[in-house]
């Protein structure tokens, strides 16, 4: 009986994945730390940190303490990608990176 979950709890558990659907997309023109972050998540097969947190749980992203760049990510197949402390997103990769926006961001 302890394992049974009530309907609202179940809804809450399912809801995040749906609410993480982006409503907009942008192609950056210049490199920034935000672009660097997005590049690292997309290399590992995720849209961005929201999707990663939805899959692996909140606070699961390991970051470099010096500059806050993503340090380690677990891909969807369970393998790990390790990232350098220095910038990895080269100028040629900036245009290929996608910055997703969400409904609540747009509402602001």
């Amino acid at each position, binding site marked *: 009986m302890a394992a049974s979950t009530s309907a609202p709890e179940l809804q809450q558990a399912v809801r995040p994945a749906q609410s993480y659907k982006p409503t907009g997309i942008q192609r950056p023109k210049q490199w920034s730390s935000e672009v660097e972050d997005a590049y690292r998540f997309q*290399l590992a097969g995720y849209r961005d940190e929201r999707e990663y947190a939805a899959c692996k749980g909140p606070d699961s992203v390991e970051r470099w303490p010096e500059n806050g760049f993503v340090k*380690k990510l677990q891909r969807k*197949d369970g*393998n*790990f990608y*390790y990232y*350098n402390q220095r910038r990895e997103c080269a100028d040629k990769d900036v245009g290929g990176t996608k910055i997703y926006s969400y409904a609540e961001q747009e509402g602001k």
Partner: protein
Amino acid sequence: MPTSSAAMQMRDTQKSLKAVPFSAKSIMNNVETGSPPRAGAFKERPLMKPTAFRKFYERGDFPIALEHDTKGNKIAWKIEIEKLDFHHYLPLFFDGLCETTHPYEFFARQGVHDMLEHGGSKILPVIPQLIIPIKNALNTRNHQVVCTTLKVLQHLVVSGEMVGEALVPYYRQILPILNIFKNKNLNSGDGIDYSQQKRENVGDLIQETLEAFERHGGDDAFINIKYMVPTYESCLLN
């Protein structure tokens, strides 16, 4: 007249005599021994047998996912690097630095890079086991292998605390090859040195590596480098 021409002919045949150097015949007059052979100090010395890295890779013993896609500059680790046995894996990846063919060369280089970047304090105890693979890689005298190994050495000295100091006792094994190639700079006149951007100029890489050794090697570093590479000048003193 016929007598003089016969004497000349005889002298000619004597001149054309060839002998093996240092043989009894070679001390005779009018015998040519030829020029000495080249010592081959700069000559490439290819691997005689496949590396242990190649054997382990083909057997699938490394905790890495073997992907051959176009993304291509990352290794997917099956196990977190922090949980790896560095005493086992780090010397094996260093052993692969001798490789020049894909995919061995890529996985060895990238594997070493990832382990050094994320190894922290686990690297220092393994230093003694890394010396022989480093020495073997440099001894191949292959341009590509030497460049990769020098970049790895530069990364190694900054990979953890006291790593630079721990390398000082091993300069005798590492530095002789650096001494040989220290002056191997491309003299392109006023042309453009394209290898400069790619960091493939061995002379420059050696200078950078020695400077990194001196900066991170503590007080004894300079005198030990100077002993092995007499033309090196300090970047910190003066």
